[in-house]
């Protein structure tokens, strides 16, 4: 049985699955249920300054997109940070830490961008016994209009400054939660690192409008005829999150900075993918909101079984395992040549590959009168679109043309040498081989 225990920038938990700072972690009641179900840690819903509590909308605060069978694919929300008094949250956090000492309890924090606010609240929260802090520089709605959340996360200088204030206020680990609503994730990640952050977590939600109600002509969710941009999350955002995690893991200036992976983690496999790309642990929200806390059982059992089957004995062995294989386009091997192959036994004759190739690609598939589909090797550029549109598992696959064989499309014999764009004769700025 693989060891799932996790040590993320000094914060220990029995497994690498934490609940992200969000509605599921807003109260002792929820968090207690989560821990009883088996979650390894929680990042408590973002705490704000003491004073009159935050006010939320009283109309709908979530919108969603679904598959045909109502499977939730993406969710957005316009909820703000916790709307409960600070002292209530702190009292409950203290109790939770006392009752579940082996679980990770991290406090998410968002206060105005002034030193006194941060230096006042961090020590107060630390007294509850929390294991660390997560600075919410990501929330893209509501709070950002007040100069907080992603309004901070979009300015690297602010990130660095606030992170430094927090590091000066506590010995506990400080995680900086990054917004994806930027052009290049390396800048905010670098700023967090320069400010002394122990780790970054990403992604926060993506600024979005999920749909428009064409009767009322207003975005969803609609409040009295109006809507606003909300933060998008769930399975749909995972590819964006994976890319940002990988960028931080493989860029020299940020490489080695611990990453807590967030964004559409729904199954053990999603978690394993984030970890392979460099995340030390993962945070989950939408999946728990869609299916309840019991999904943790699938995640832990699945990850553990997969690790057993693949010879991993601890989660750390998996972290970053795929990072060396993420590269720039310019370094991809142009001498690796494949062609589509259609398994006629499996083909059900729908013709989607033909439509895709004939209409939108390279006219490399033939269709006979009796609906037999074949690949024309002299036209196939191996784009993979037919594979991706085929409804049958493994019916169309990409098969490598071995070195020494003829590529009928180019008329060239396939080279066994690795050759990338930087050395290609068509590249005006090619580097001569030394």
């Amino acid at each position: 049985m693989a060891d799932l225990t996790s040590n993320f920038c000094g914060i220990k938990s029995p497994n690498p699955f934490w609940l992200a700072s969000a509605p599921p972690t807003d109260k002792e009641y929820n968090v207690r249920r989560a821990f009883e179900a088996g979650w390894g840690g929680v990042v408590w819903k973002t705490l704000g300054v003491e004073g009159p509590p935050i006010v939320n909308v009283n109309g709908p605060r979530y919108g969603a997109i679904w598959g045909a069978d109502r499977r939730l694919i993406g969710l957005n929300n316009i909820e703000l940070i916790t709307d409960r008094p600070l002292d209530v949250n702190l009292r409950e956090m203290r109790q939770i830490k006392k009752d579940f000492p082996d679980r990770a309890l991290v406090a998410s924090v968002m206060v105005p961008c002034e030193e006194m606010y941060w230096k006042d609240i961090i020590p107060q929260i630390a007294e509850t016994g929390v294991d660390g802090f997560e600075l919410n520089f990501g929330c893209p709605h509501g709070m950002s209009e007040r100069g907080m959340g992603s309004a901070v996360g979009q300015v690297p200088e602010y990130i660095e400054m606030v992170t430094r204030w927090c590091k000066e206020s506590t010995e506990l680990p400080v995680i900086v939660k990054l917004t994806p609503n930027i052009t290049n994730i390396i800048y905010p990640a670098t700023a967090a690192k320069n400010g002394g952050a122990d780790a970054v977590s990403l992604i926060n939600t993506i600024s979005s409008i999920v749909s428009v109600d064409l009767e009322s002509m207003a975005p969803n969710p609609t409040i009295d005829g109006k809507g606003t941009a909300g933060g998008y999350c769930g399975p749909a955002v995972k590819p964006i999150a994976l890319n940002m995690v990988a960028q931080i893991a493989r860029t020299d200036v940020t490489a080695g900075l611990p990453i807590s992976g967030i964004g559409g983690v729904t199954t053990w496999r999603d978690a394993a993918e984030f970890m392979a790309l460099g995340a030390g642990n993962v945070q989950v929200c939408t999946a728990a909101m869609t299916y309840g806390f019991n999904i943790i059982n699938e995640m832990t059992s699945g990850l553990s079984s997969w690790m057993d089957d693949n010879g991993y004995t601890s989660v750390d062995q998996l972290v970053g395992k795929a990072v060396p294989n993420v590269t720039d386009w310019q370094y991809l091997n142009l001498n690796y040549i494949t062609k589509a192959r259609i398994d006629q036994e499996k083909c059900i004759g729908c013709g989607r590959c033909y439509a895709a190739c004939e209409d939108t690609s390279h006219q490399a598939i033939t269709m006979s009168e009796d609906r037999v589909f074949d690949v024309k090797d002299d036209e196939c550029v191996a784009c993979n679109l037919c594979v991706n549109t085929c409804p049958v598992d493994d019916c169309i696959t990409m098969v490598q043309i071995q070195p020494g064989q003829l590529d009928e499309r180019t008329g060239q014999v396939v080279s066994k040498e690795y050759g990338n764009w930087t050395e290609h004769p068509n590249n005006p700025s090619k580097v001569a081989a030394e």
Partner: protein
Amino acid sequence: MSKHTAAEGLFSGRLNQTSLKNNFSDLHPPLDGHEAAVAADRCYFCYDAPCVNACPTDIDIPLFIRQISTGMPVASAKTILDQNILGGMCARVCPTETLCEEACVREKAEGKPVQIGLLQRYATDVVMEADNHPFDRAPSTNKRVAVIGAGPAGLAAAHRLAMLGNDVVIFESKEKPGGLNEFGIAAYKSTNDFAQKEVAWLLKIGGIKINNDKLLGRDFSLSGLTDEYDAVFIGVGLGNVRSLDIDGESLRNVQDAVDFISSLRQEKDLSKLEVGSNVVVIGGGMTAIDAAVQSKLLGALDVTVVYRRSMEEMPASRYEQELAKSKGVKFIYNAKPVQITGDEQITNIKFQVNQNGDEFTLPADHLLKAIGQIMDELPAELSLQNKKIKVDKNFKTDAANIWAGGDCTCIGEDLTVTAVAQGRDAAINIHASLSGEI
């Protein structure tokens, strides 16, 4: 020599081998990987799921289906087998239409439940085919438990006891283990000798010895077992059948349906099995349906099930009745048999209609009785309730150190899955009792 389906009397070989092979192939062919993924995708992962509450063994159905969805059939099977060590057989024989699938919220919504039974089979098949036994034994307790009967209850009890570190010896009256999984149940629900394969797989836990051909009362006594073992579990099932108590019952070709099914299950070459041309089955449970359908599939021309109450009251589910009808079995409700006639062998059977006392006669060259199984005579130290062994909620009998589970107990429905649950829970209680935890 082959016989036409209309030839009167009991004959074998009414159908050719090809027809027999088709007729007795898997009732529900297993799902392939893609089908399983699509079927699993329909599960809503309900909270406090109704399907789990409807399962006598409390399998965490949403979890095992989610594990199939995420490509982990082995983890999925473990979830199933944790609760139900005979999850492979139950996936084949459970009346899911009256248990988990009836409770499925998609049954309520669309009349099309998630295919829980087939998904359970998909996951358990992966583990069985890989010959992977995902359980280990706890350190030895140095306790020895005797189990009487190697049917679903006895096997489930034995496995759990062995897993918890106890040594188990099973005493089975027949020549091989499996109980009704092996000798009852329609052949098309358990193909390819699955019952024996499952027993062999179950025994991989270790610490279980089976003594076949050992009958309680003939080869050993209950008091002998209680003297020799720390505890005894009784899972003997129902060894006897009710009789009709009408004239002509001793005529030739009047047979107990359980015997007919048992010989069918044990016959390797179905073309050697005899069946009548006009078969009448009396009864309304699963045994009646299984006997009727299989008679038809063996080549009987005309098969009629006669049940003494209404269609709605029939213990066999509507689904099973529909299945039988689709195979050409006819049903007559609200009539009871009054007389069997014939010269040495049966030729006719007379019935009386409940409502008005009218009588009618059906020609019959083969009569199968399926009006219920009852207990064999039991050792005097066991007290009975409703003519079955009296047990408490922990499946403890009134006698010291003796537990019981399965069809032979006074509680629960007579289903494979219920027997497994009772065997498992009795084993847990036996273990707790022997280890001084209770």
